[in-house]
Structure formats: structure tokens, C-alpha cells
């Protein structure tokens, strides 16, 4: 019935796709005639866009976004350093690996550190420079002394910044790779010092985990178990994540059982694993462990009853 009331051209104009067609034609015309005027740049918005493109793997678009901000802002504008940092990130971390442009990334990170030395971007840039020395391409040896020095630069410049704390953890984690007793002992002492100075650091759990690894290597098993427990106690809970603690509980229990001979602690953590993470596969060996410890204790008791002088160490 509508057709009787409307002429064909009015129907075309009111058709739901009319606007779409009109816009397409206009855009085409603008493109062809080159009449598109330059958009005003909103640096904050473009930086956010750049990061979103980076996260989505649209690296070329991200580069364009950051470069636009860099070219439209003065060097003393804080967004200039932020955009440089974003650009450096893309060059440094883009995938596939062959597309990375690390020389440019290095130069850009250094520029950020020089232009805004106290900024957050500078802190993360210095850390990124350390990571570039650390995470070398496959087959290229890592110069761990250089990694340590680069981390120290971040620690010295930003001792209380998250980037500084992370640099310390990275530095000490790489030092411990030698497995040499002296290095390992030094790392344990350095991390203990960090923990006493920064008991509330968000890296506390990881720091205690690192210390526990040191004590394991050094054969100081009771301290190892205590450090593992502290690591669990300090561990952060992600309000939006799975927060599966079965692995942490298992590590404490097995260290207490096999390394420290602290069956009481072992039992406590095996039981926590069974109760708190009932669907974890390692619940089964945890139950086996409880039976095993009881059997060992019974055997020792029986032996000591037969030979009371056999006790003591």
C-alpha cells in the first residue's frame, strides 16, 4: 500500500540503506578528489588508540597512531614522551619476531629517558632496555653481566617504582642461573634485604619464591620451606582470575616432606591442597603422600620400640 502513497524517488530516499549509500559515495568522492581536510589530533585519544592497536596486533596502525602524536606535539609535552614510549614498544615487541625493529626501539627508549627522565615512561623505557638485553633472539647468547648492569640502571633511577622493583627481581633471577653457591647466597641475602625494606612490595611473593629456590640450591631446606610458606602468604589474589593454588600448596608440602623432613607441615599443606583444590589432579598423589608419611612414621616407631637406643641423631 505504501507504494501507492509514495513515488519511487521518495522511497529510495527513505530506504534504510539510502544513508549508507550516500555516505559511501561521499567518502569515495572525497577520497578521489583529495578534499579530506586534516583531522585535528587529540594526542591522548590517539595514544589510547595506538595501545589498543598494539594489543590487537595491528602494529602498523599502532605505529601510525604513535608517530602522528610524536609529530604533532612538542618535545616538552608529556604526551610526546608517552607516544615515543608506545612507538618503542611496538618496534620492540611486535610479532612476528622478524618484524621487530630493535635498533629503532633502543633509540626511542633512550630518547624517552633523556626527554622525560622522571616520568613513568622513562622508568618503563629503562626496564625495556634491560629486557632487550635479556631476551635475545634464539641462538644469540645472553650477556648476563650486561643484563645485570641494565637492571641496576633502573634500580638506581627508580628504586621505589614498580619498574625498579621488577628490575631487581629480574636482575637477581638471572644471577641465580649460575647455580654457583656464592652467587646463590648473595642473591638470597640481597632479596632478604629488599623484603625487609619493602615488606609490602607487590613483588614480595615472587621475591620469597626466589629466596626459597636459593635455599633449595644451598641445601637449607627448613628455610626453604619457610620462604615457600611466606611466598604463598604474600601471593596476590587476582579478583578476576582462576587463582589456582594447588601448585604452590604442593611445592610446600613436598619440600617439607622430602627435603626438610617436617611431616607436620607437609601434612598441613597436603590437606589444604585436598580441601581447597579438590579438582586438581595432584590431589591423588597428595593422598598417597599422606598414607606414605604415616607408613614411614609407623615403621620408625616399630623400629624404635624394638631398639629404643636407635633414636636421636
Amino acid at each position, binding site marked *: 500500500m505504501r507504494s501507492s502513497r509514495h513515488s519511487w524517488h521518495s522511497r529510495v530516499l527513505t530506504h534504510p540503506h539510502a544513508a549508507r549509500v550516500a555516505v559511501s559515495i561521499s567518502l569515495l568522492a572525497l577520497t578521489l578528489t583529495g578534499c579530506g581536510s586534516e583531522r585535528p589530533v587529540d594526542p591522548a585519544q590517539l595514544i589510547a588508540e595506538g595501545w589498543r592497536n598494539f594489543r590487537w596486533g595491528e602494529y602498523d596502525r599502532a605505529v601510525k597512531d604513535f608517530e602522528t602524536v610524536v609529530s604533532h606535539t612538542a618535545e616538552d609535552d608529556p604526551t610526546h614522551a608517552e607516544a615515543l614510549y608506545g612507538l618503542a614498544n611496538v618496534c620492540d615487541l611486535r610479532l612476528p619476531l622478524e618484524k621487530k625493529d630493535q635498533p629503532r626501539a633502543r633509540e626511542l627508549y633512550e630518547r624517552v629517558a633523556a626527554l622525560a627522565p622522571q616520568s613513568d615512561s622513562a622508568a618503563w623505557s629503562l626496564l625495556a632496555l634491560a629486557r632487550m638485553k635479556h631476551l635475545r633472539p634464539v641462538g644469540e647468547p645472553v650477556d648476563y653481566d650486561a643484563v645485570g648492569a641494565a637492571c641496576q640502571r633502573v634500580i638506581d633511577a627508580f628504586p621505589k617504582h614498580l619498574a625498579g622493583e621488577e628490575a631487581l627481581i629480574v636482575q637477581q633471577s638471572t644471577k641465580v642461573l649460575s647455580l654457583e653457591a656464592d652467587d646463590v647466597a648473595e642473591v638470597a641475602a640481597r632479596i632478604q634485604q629488599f623484603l625487609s625494606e619493602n615488606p609490602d612490595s607487590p613483588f614480595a611473593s615472587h621475591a620469597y619464591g626466589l629466596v626459597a629456590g636459593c635455599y633449595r640450591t644451598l641445601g637449607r631446606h627448613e628455610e626453604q620451606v619457610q620462604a615457600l610458606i611466606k611466598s604463598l602468604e604474600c601471593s596476590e589474589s587476582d579478583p578476576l582470575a582462576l587463582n589456582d593454588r594447588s601448585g604452590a600448596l604442593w611445592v610446600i608440602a613436598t619440600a617439607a616432606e622430602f627435603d*626438610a623432613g617436617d611431616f607436620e607441615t607437609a601434612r598441613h599443606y597436603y590437606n589444604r591442597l585436598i580441601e581447597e583444590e579438590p579438582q586438581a589432579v595432584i590431589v591423588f598423589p597428595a593422598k598417597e603422600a599422606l598414607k606414605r608419611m604415616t607408613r*614411614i612414621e609407623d615403621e620408625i616407631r616399630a623400629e624404635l*620400640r624394638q631398639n629404643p637406643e636407635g633414636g636421636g641423631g
Partner: protein
Amino acid sequence: MARTLLDFVRRYYPIMVIIGAFLWAVVTIETRTSVEDDPDVKVIRLAHWQLEAGAAAAFDEMAAEYHKLHPDVRIVHEAIPETGYGAWVSTQLMGGTAPDLIEMGGGGLPSTTWLSFYTRYFLSLSDLANQPNPYNEGTELEGVILRQTFHDGMRQGYQPELQEYNKVPLSMFGCRIFYNKDLLKRLTGLDTPPSGFREFLAVCKQIRAKRSEQGSYYTPIAGSRWHLSLWEFCMFDPITFTGLYDADLDRDGYLANFELFAAVRQGALDFQHPAFRGRFQMMRDITDNFQVGYTGLQRDDGLFLFAQEKAVFMVTGTWDARSLVEQTRDSFELGIIDFPWPTPDDPDYGPLIKGTAYEWPWVSFAFGVYNKSKYPDEAKDFLLFLASQKGNERLNKLFGWIPGVRGTDMDPLVRAFQPRLAGMYAVFNQLSINLQGETWIKFLQLCAQYQIKQLELDEFLSQFEAFYRDRGQRDFEEVMKDRWRGIITDATTLGSVRSRALEATGTQAKSLWVKYRLLLAGRILGSEGSINVYNRLVAGERIPAYEKPYEHRPQALARVRDRIAREIAAASADGAPRP
């Protein structure tokens, strides 16, 4: 004139056909788009690869139910064959034309590709997973956050590499043995199926000895390469559990391929280990009852043999249950039994048996939300509807599957499939033995020869071990290089998480920073430490912390002994009965 026209057509015929086809395509697409562009209706497209009987009807019914609640939303589902699903999804995602809801995983795409898709094309569902499902109002799950409404805590929707939930799994799957009750009775006289391992083998032997009226053989177990993989997963792999205590050098409760190689190179175990031998001996015991030539057969071949009443038993999963019932309804009565697990006093497998097998709760059939969806809120809402107690129960009854959500009723047929969440689990399986490269190819070749009895167990294991120890070195190095490449790729993920954390506020920011530190500690620093240790172990270095991980250290036992001695002494002094 006519000639000129004919010449013109002849000359430009191909171009005219192309232009015609183009115009036809334009008109078709525009017509279809017009239907979907009804401004009053939000169309949510859902893609999946379920072509089982009843799948289309199930989706239609759920869509109709949802439409009743939300008249402004229409759900349209598209079933894509599994073989082409991966390619289809990839094309749609890259072309920006993907549906709003997409079944995640499978379709022939490797998990690493799916992982890259998760970050690039799908919305994070962590917020959804941590909020109560509004469709559970009035049920026992009212107010419970979504992830805790699932049997497995929605673990299958969680991506550890990203520390995020990015899909909602809707069904649980399990495997059992189907059997032909009538044929079993006719061939063995049994009214009840065999339960234990030895009894099962004895019944299979009885079946093998029978002939049909035409003189043809009966097959005790319908098999194929596909069916063998289920037997391996559900039965042969879990009996290797005791190998954990010798091979798990880092004592984390699991065995990785590089770890097994290091354990063998360190002399912690060899391929004559009872758990290894047990796995392959059991394979021979069971496959001796498959039809001849099963290694060259596919899933449908085994299914055909069973449906034709030429085989008594067949292993498969919940996904086939409904179809099997439908197909055999007029032919024979179908029964379902558990796997015939050996007892601890079994002459061959007894020492390996510490319990029954852990069965992974495959809460799967998971959907994610496309990040360019026009209606992301409606897409998420429909997922919540499907994941609600009532919705999930209904959906799975229609499919004949096990619901993923707690407190749901299920089709009686699939009750027997409910997984056991406690027991022995696989240690030597196709993940830990697979050192990739030529070592894995050699394993597959030798194992195939063993399966067709060209090799006996000793020959198979000794030939593989020789190759593994020697050529495995090169493949181990490649595995380690891949791990390092993984670390470098993880650094990109880390950069991505940091950028989001710096932008976010409140709970979101806290969550992202925790995620950031976990990724740093676990996937970068932790992996680097692991690569360092295993390279050294394989090179022959002795690292005390990684030697005999499940043996109590002498000092540890001395401490236990001291404590007990003190307890005994204290009890004696008190005059109390000795502990």
C-alpha cells in the same frame, strides 16, 4: 544488425557473465542484509561445528526460548563442518565478518593459533565469569559467581597463558565402553557385562572363539586408530602414573617432554620402566581383541562394525551416545560399562595400580564473543542464558550431553559418563614421550610396527630408547629453542597486559597488575630458570636438588626419627601409653 549483436555477445561474453554474476551477488547479499537489518531486531549470529543428530533442533529451541524472553533479539546459528571449521573461522575473523558467538577450539587449528585469536579477536570474559548469572535467580545458584556454578570451576574457559577467561564452556564429556547386550548374551551366555580387567579379557577370548552361521568371526572390540586413542587416553596412559616418582625431576607433579628426556639422560629411568612396559603391554592385551587391520581404519569403520552387530564392545564418548541409541534402537539393546580396570593383585599390572583413573572433566563446547560484535552485551547475555542452571540443563538434554553447570539433571543415558575427579593420571603419554622432530616420527614408526606385531615389546622399547638417547639430543635442543621463542613471544603479551594495567582503574587495574607479575614470574623468569636447569641436566651436570626428587633426604628422615624418638621418650616419662 543481428550479426553485429551476435559478434558483440561473442566478444564480450566472459565479461558479461562476470558482470552478471557480480550483480546477482550484490542483489543477494543486499536482500539478505536487509532482512537482518530490521532496525527493531538485534540479530546474534552463532557459529559451531556440531553436526550431531539433534544439534540444529537444540539450538533452534534454545534460540526460540531466548526470543520469548527478549523479543528484540533473534539468534541465528550456523553449523560448519568440523573439517573446514578452522579455515572458516580464520577467514571470518581476519575478514571482519565473524559471527557474534563462536565455538572455540578444534576445527583443525593448533592451540597456538587459537591462542593468538583469543587475544586478537575475542572479548575477555573475566568480568562475566566473576559476576552472578542473572538467569540463575530463584535457583540454588542465585548470587553465585558464574565460574563457581560450573563443575570444574570453569577451568576450561580460562586461558593460563593470558590469565583470563575468554570462553564459556557449556557441556561435559566423558568416555565409556558401549556394548551390545543381545550379542554378548548370545555369544557368551552372560546377562551382565564383565567388570574387571581379567574378566573382560576372558570374555573377549570367548567372543573370539565364536563363529556366525556363515562362519565369519566376531570381533570382541570394535577398533580403529581413533578408538585406540581413546583407549590410550582413558586406560593405558593413567597406568603409567607410578613413573612420576622417578621422572618428575622438578617435583611439580607433572611430566614434560624435556623433563623425561633429562630423566633418561640422567639415568633416573629407562624405557624398561614397569610403567612404560605396562602401558604398551596393556595396549597389546586390548588391541589383540580389535579387528585385524584396525591401524588402517578410521572412526566410522569401527562404528560400522559395531552397528552391524559384528563386534560386542566399542569405546566412545558422550558425543556419540544419542546417535548410537538412535541407530541401534531397532537392532539391539545397548549397554554402557566403565573401563575394566585391573586390580592391585593383577599378575601383570598390580604394582602399577594405586587406584582408578582420574578422568579429566572435559567441560567443553565453549563459546567466545567476537570483539567486533555489533551486540556484545546481547551475545554475552545469550551465553549466560545457555550457562544458567535451567538453560544448561535444557540445552544438554536436547543434545544428550552432560551439563557443565552444577545442580543440573541430565539424560539418564549419560549418567554413566560422569567423570571421576580422583585417581591416577597419565605420566608417560603422547605429550611427555613426544620429543618432536625425528624422535617422535621414530616412535610412531616403531609403535605402528609393534601394533601390527612386526616388533615385540622388548624390541620396540630397546630400539626406541637407542634412538631417543642419541637423536633425541637434537630434538631436545629444538624444544628448548622453542621454549625460548615462547618467552620472547610472552614478552609481547606482558607488554600488552602492562599497557592495559596502566590504563585501567580499580579492580580491573588490580587484576591486570597481578596478571602481569604472574606472567613475568611464571612464563618468563620461571621458564628461563627451567631451560637453564634442563640444559645442564641433559649435558650431564649433577644438580642435587633435581636428583631422586621423591626420595626422602637422609637428613629429612633423621629429623622425623628424632621427633618420634622424642615423642616416645616424652610419653614414657609421662607414663602415658607410647605413641
